[in-house]
């Protein structure tokens, strides 16, 4: 494998970090800096914010993230198969169909159980 390709990505990574950091730094240097208690207060509705910011969130966020991770794994299995697909036989098609269908059925079960509702 040509590591030069990845050297490009590595340098790109550094530049991609520097490019947005420079304007922010410049803005911080060039702009005025006059903080006062009112200005640096949490921006809400005009009244001082009440309680902790890190309130407990809906469990639904977690469930969707969970479903996403499972499907992410599935898609990553699919990619090598998709690349090789042209030269594979019918068996490969059947094997992958079973794989995808199982997860599709899974999705429908979750749907029926109401796990996909945002309530």
């Amino acid at each position, binding site marked *: 494998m040509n590591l030069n390709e990845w*050297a490009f990505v590595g340098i790109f990574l550094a530049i991609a970090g520097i490019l*947005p950091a420079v304007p*922010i730094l410049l803005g911080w240097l060039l702009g005025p800096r006059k903080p006062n208690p009112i200005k640096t207060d*949490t921006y809400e509705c005009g009244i001082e914010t009440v309680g902790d910011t890190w309130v407990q969130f809906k469990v639904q966020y977690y469930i969707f993230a969970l479903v996403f991770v499972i499907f992410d794994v599935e898609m990553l299995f699919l990619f090598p198969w998709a690349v090789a697909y042209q030269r594979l036989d019918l068996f490969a098609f059947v094997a992958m169909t079973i794989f995808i269908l199982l997860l599709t059925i899974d999705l429908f079960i979750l749907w029926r159980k109401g796990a*996909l509702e945002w309530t």
Partner: protein
Amino acid sequence: MVKDALIQAGMNIGWATFIDLLLGVIVAASFGMVWVLLGIWIERKWAGRFQNRIGPNRVGPYGSIQSVADALKLLTKEVIIPRNADRPVYFLAPVLVVASVILIAAVIPFSPVVIGTDLSIGILYVMAVSSIGAIGIMMAGWGSNNKYALLGAFRVVAQLISYEVPTVLSAMIPVMIAGTLSMQGLVHGQHVWFIVSAPVAAVLFFIASQAELGRAPFDLLEAESELVAGFNIEYSGMAFAMFYLAEFMHSFFVAILFSVLFLGGWRGPGAEQIPFLGIVYLFIKSILVYFVSVWLRLTVPRVRIDQLLNLNWKFLVPLAMIYVIFMAFVLKIAPVPDLSGAQAIAAGPYEGVASGIYRLLGPDFVATLPQAGVLLLANVLFVVVAAAVLREVSRRRRMRVEDLVDETDYSGAGGAGGYTPADHSETAAAR
């Protein structure tokens, strides 16, 4: 070119390679930043016309350097740091968001020879770096230490990760037909544009990628009426501008990506011979896609979060999964044809009409045409069946609701089962 010149000038090969790479990186990385200055102006002009206004028209001819003026103005604005902010996280967030977008530029194939680096995992690399953006947004929400910002960040991240599934699944169809993940390979494999061979995938990809961008109708992240402004509410000055920049850059990059995956990338008459033409073709295609995206943004209203997630998990994802199986099946019936025969005829001596057509339209294009036709027909069939199923499902649901209405005593005891959840969950949707 630069490398050879430097080596001739007596430089160490290692350093010459490094400088060569560095120059390439700087050109590719700043492409996005420079484009944004122009792109924002174009989009604002379009937005103006859509809404029966003129749009920016003060700075420069037709207001064309308005964005430069805005950038300069933002540079002189105070970067307000909220007292309770988690500072390192707060400042790293915009950097990460922009970086995740800029990194896409590394693998965009502008023409047969102009590409940052043609990675073997090209399209997967694009998906991977885009998924980092979600973490940046999460950091912005957390770092700001503001309830609305955190809530907005949560929503955006839920949206981004959900729509990643149909985006990736629909991008898999071009991969399947072209048999490669490399971006140049995807373009080379497109003798007939994939929007013809796989229109359903193109539509799925377009819808899902609009949601990935967080633009209207999926702009829940900046639902001003609910969340003040979303995850970036505590940001000001240049730090805020970075989020803005990332959004614009991302929307154009996604248009480019769509062109590469489904509209033949740099392909066009004479692009192989004159690489510069390839850049022009890619830009024309991308701007057209971008226009459709802006058009959509300016026309349709925002959806609610429950509708957003329903659309994804109950429509796009199942559809995309079944579509992948379907296309795999069709590709077994109509495999990608062997092109060597047609190429031989085109290269050989002139004999009759066939070789004339091959030469005029290109042997690869003509030889792939029958297969693309079969795929197109199969796609039409898929859409017809899917529409019929959907009609049936919604008819049943409607009947169930009607039955329910007949049985209830109309005393307003809402919330009974049978309605789709989308009908009565406005209040619950907030958190």
